[in-house]
């Protein structure tokens, strides 16, 4: 196996995927935070510059990105709770697969309606 497998392999099965997704969403949200600090900083140059900067985020590509970002934050938050539960309550390790599916189901229950609502501008 090549080098990549070394980076993406970890304990296998649900544990591996939840772990990999946690890292990927974590990096994604952090990178956006850097961009968000820069866009917010534009407010120091007054209404014209700031409003022009915000207009970039109104582009359809960014509005789709916004939904993906919200999904990344939500997954990272819910999976983080799973990690904390298992860390501080070791008996729950026995139910770790169920906990992961609980994360997936909770994610879907919140994300699907939120995403549909956030995408409503498309049909207006």
């Amino acid at each position: 196996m090549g080098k990549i497998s070394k980076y993406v392999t970890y304990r296998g099965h649900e544990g591996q995927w939840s772990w990999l997704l946690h890292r990927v969403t974590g990096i994604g949200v952090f990178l956006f935070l850097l961009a968000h600090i820069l866009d917010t900083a534009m407010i120091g140059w007054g209404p014209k510059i700031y409003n022009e900067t915000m207009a970039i985020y109104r582009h359809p590509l960014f509005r789709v990105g916004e939904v993906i970002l919200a999904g990344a934050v939500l997954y990272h938050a819910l999976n983080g709770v799973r990690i904390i539960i298992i860390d501080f309550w070791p008996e729950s390790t026995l139910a770790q697969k169920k906990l992961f599916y609980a994360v997936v189901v909770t994610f879907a229950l919140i994300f699907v309606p939120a995403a549909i609502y956030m995408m409503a501008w498309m049909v207006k």
Partner: protein
Amino acid sequence: MNGAGRPRPQGGIDLLAWIFMRVSGVVLLLMVLVHLAIMHIINNIEVINYHFVAQRYATPFWRTYDLVMLWLAFIHGLNGVRVMIDDYVGSRGWRLISLASLYVLGFIFLALGSLVILTFNPARPF
């Protein structure tokens, strides 16, 4: 092997970082989801502009909220990247260079973000 996250370190700064990730994680869960609900569901990018921020920052509440959230999220993310550098950057030299760049960049961005939140003056004429 127990735990879903990184094994709890024995002590020192690594244990502090491990605890910080979990404590800040819980606080951020609430703060960021409220932030998302207000800025991306109740309001959205169509209505967010200079005037919107000026109104929001007219009282200290949201400034304080945003500053606390910024610091927690930023240090949480910075520590996450630090852990990944430790995991993925094998050579000692590159690890040192990566970590040093991370801390310098991190300092600049966190300082800039804090400065914007603290010094924005809605009453300033343009």
